[in-house]
């Protein structure tokens, strides 16, 4: 019988997250994929999970999972794991995914591997590949012991695939235990986001501290628009308050994998590289010839971005007009 692999479904922007669909593709390829869907979700979420490979969905729509942090979900997932004993449980390597997997690992006294880029499963033993230290190393690790194997999967590690399954839903009950209701989400605040989003963008134009200020991101937006892409940023630019967190690329931001990444005024710190290094083509503009980003660039210009970017914009307009 095929090994059962669970995917903990995550919602982002009110829909099943791209990473969830990526994990389902890998799970279905490796064994029998099943999903867990906790908390209020859009009506079409179960169908989406089935469409992308989940042959069964454990669902509970109780708002407790949305209104309280980690503990209710951990309790439910732990009970499900103990009852059904899947071979592997996959979580997105997101902040919520990590909190949940960390709790389960301590609760069930089993290992959890973070930042997994790929894995194999053979005779119940899992072998995970992890791009470590900003992907300057590649580890393979395994988990020992009789407990479940928890893997936290890096976004963009797999391609989502339509793999239509009949919709099979098993409803589960929400935990009633009041002691799980310690950390409550009081309010959700959305900050303004403009322009095309990073997820799925084929081209990303990204700015760092070299941009010097919020107003100069207008130039990057113009460039991105000409190339049909989205704008990203380093944490330095986000921490400076120039752009919102949703634009941050890197270890503590988004992982992206566009065909083209244009890095403007970005030094190339490992934490930034870990989120964009696997872009197909990397172009960078930096005035410091020793900036580490050049070691990862297919094409680099040592120069002042305030001269190079406007010229590039003019050139693209000219060539488009032609």
């Amino acid at each position, binding site marked *: 019988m095929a090994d059962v692999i669970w995917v903990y479904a995550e919602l*982002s*922007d009110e829909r099943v997250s791209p990473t969830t669909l990526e994990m389902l593709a890998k799970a279905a390829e490796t064994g029998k994929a099943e999903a867990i869907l906790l908390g209020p979700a859009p009506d079409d979420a179960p169908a989406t999970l089935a469409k992308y490979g989940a042959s069964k969905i454990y669902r509970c729509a109780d708002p407790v999972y949305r209104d309280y*942090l*980690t503990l209710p979900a*951990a309790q439910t997932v732990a009970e499900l794991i103990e009852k059904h004993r899947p071979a592997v449980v996959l979580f997105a390597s997101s*902040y919520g995914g*990590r*909190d*949940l997997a*960390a*709790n389960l*690992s*301590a609760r069930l*006294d*089993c*290992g*959890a*591997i*973070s930042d997994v880029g790929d894995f194999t499963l053979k005779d119940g033993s899992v072998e995970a590949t992890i791009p470590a*230290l900003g*992907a300057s*190393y*590649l*580890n393979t*690790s395994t*988990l*020992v*012991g009789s407990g479940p194997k928890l893997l*936290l999967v890096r976004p963009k590690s797999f391609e989502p695939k339509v793999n239509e399954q009949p919709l099979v839903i098993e409803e589960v009950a929400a935990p009633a235990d009041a002691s799980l209701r*310690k*950390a*409550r*989400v*009081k*309010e959700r*605040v*959305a*900050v303004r986001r403009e322009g095309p989003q990073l997820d799925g963008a084929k*081209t990303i134009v990204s700015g760092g501290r070299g941009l010097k200020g919020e107003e100069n991101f207008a130039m990057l937006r113009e460039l991105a628009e000409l*190339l049909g892409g989205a704008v990203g940023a380093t944490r330095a630019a986000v921490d400076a308050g120039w752009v919102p967190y*949703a634009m941050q690329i890197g270890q*503590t931001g988004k992982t992206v994998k566009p065909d083209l990444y*244009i890095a403007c005024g970005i030094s190339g710190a490992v934490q930034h590289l870990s989120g964009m290094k696997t872009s197909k083509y990397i*172009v960078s503009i930096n005035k410091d*010839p020793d900036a580490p980003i*050049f070691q990862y*660039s*297919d*094409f*680099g*210009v*040592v*120069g*002042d971005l305030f*001269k*190079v970017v406007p010229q*590039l*914009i003019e050139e693209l307009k000219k*060539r*488009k007009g032609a």
Partner: protein
Amino acid sequence: MNIVVCGKVIPASTVTIEIDPATKRMVRKGVAHELDPAAACAVEEGLRLVEKHGGTVTLITMGIADATIGIRNALAMGATSAVHILDDAVAGSDTLGTAKVLAAAIKKQPFDLVLCATESSDSYSGIVPGQIAFLLGVPPLSFAKEIAVEGDRITIKRQSESGFDVVESTLPALVAVSSGINEPRYPQLKGIMAAKKKEIKVYTAADLGLSPDQVGEKGAKEKVLTIGRPPKRQAGKIVTDEGDGGRQIADFLAEIKVI
């Protein structure tokens, strides 16, 4: 209020990290170390809370002898005292082993709040805080970009994809801070001098009541099988802007058929 900060001491950012092919571990001995910049944010946050509400900040670290330099740094910033878990028996610990050691050390002090960084800057698995929280039986709150305490309640702003969530909990709790939460202070001479007199308790695994099969290499659930360098990216073309840098990029984009 008694605040315990878990702070990792890691190879300094100036060090190129090497892996020992035999043990498959990071080479730490003889390498310059520093307090993880992410942990420094947790220390800073602890100090700010104590400046406002009174109390103590205790730094706890598990690490090699060279970690003392990072501990001194936290003490010089203003932490009240420190605990160093220093024992060959904990070497080779995976995340859960590390969390078991840290949780056992935390339980030895009175605490209202445990602060961690959401992830360490060297191995950033980001799961140790959640494991510690479970072992202590307190709620885990991570990715905090702002913290406020009032009486026995804590409120954080938790970074979210679309903005932030306001999350409220009772104390005791564990909060993992996002590294953009503050700008950690630099130790001043006065602090550096004062740090020399501050107490650093040193514990072994046995002091914490942990048996060798729970922690260290023996207790690790995660075993590293191989470690190596990924294939190097093919070196690209780097040019210096002589007034036509933008045009050259456009040519490159045409070459790769983006335009």
